């Protein structure tokens, strides 16, 4: 059983906070259970699969699209707060039933997403405990994920530092290598140049012995 608990404020009484719990098996489109609580009382109602198809047909909307709209409104709750209008109206004093409706506001029109009659729960405490327990489980799970991500983060950071050091050392050794090679090349090359100079001198002397004797005298 998947579950999502959120806080909502009825359009007709925006100072009062209600807690909305949506529970569904695997796919939201296979139907879901709505539980509403004001912290003291609780109401619940089921939206069966057939109802979802009927609603989509009434709105002449593709079923998948309608289910996606439901998901965005009831579970993801993405987008600005005024994107959806929620309202609850108790049918009579006993509050035995209440009417729950959820609308999506577009520019100048709003269309009804969910509208159903909820039955008051004889023991709201169970529903409320379920909501708080679900929230505490979420918090624990998110804490675990957060810790795991933080550890992963630290590992990646240290890997990245390590890689940075290796890259710097690679660049450094490349420069040293270049320097080292040039030094050796220069040594060997200058040896050869010295050899050429001495050969050129000898050749000069051999080609002009007379000149050299005079020069030497």
């Amino acid at each position, binding site marked *: 059983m998947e579950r999502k608990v959120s806080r909502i404020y009825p359009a007709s009484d925006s100072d009062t906070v209600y807690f909305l719990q949506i529970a569904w098996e695997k796919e939201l489109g296979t139907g879901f259970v709505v539980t509403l609580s004001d912290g003291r009382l609780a109401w619940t109602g089921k939206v069966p699969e057939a109802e979802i198809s009927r609603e989509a047909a009434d709105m002449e909307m593709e079923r998948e699209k309608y289910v996606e709209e439901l998901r965005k409104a009831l579970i993801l709750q993405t987008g600005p707060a005024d994107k959806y209008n929620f309202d609850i109206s108790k049918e009579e004093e006993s509050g035995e039933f209440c009417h729950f409706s959820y609308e999506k506001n577009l520019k100048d029109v709003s269309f009804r997403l969910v509208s159903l009659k909820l039955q008051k729960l004889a023991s709201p405490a169970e529903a409320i405990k379920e909501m708080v327990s679900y929230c505490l489980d979420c918090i624990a799970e998110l804490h675990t994920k957060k810790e795991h991500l933080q550890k992963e983060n630290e590992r990646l950071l240290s890997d990245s530092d390590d890689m940075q050091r290796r890259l710097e050392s690679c660049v450094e050794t490349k420069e040293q290598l270049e*320097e080292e090679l*040039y*030094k050796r*090349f*220069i040594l060997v*090359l*200058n040896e050869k*140049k*010295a050899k*050429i*100079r001495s050969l*050129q001198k000898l050749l000069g002397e051999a080609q002009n012995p007379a000149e050299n004797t005079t020069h030497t005298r």
Partner: protein
Amino acid sequence: SPDTKQHFACEYDRYGDSYTVDTDMTQLKEVFSRINDIK
């Protein structure tokens, strides 16, 4: 001129490196970079 050409041919190899004057880092780098151009 042919003379200058002849002179350079005696003094420098085809990569422009002197046969007799000792080389250093800057000059050798220059010679090597010319080899690249020649390629």
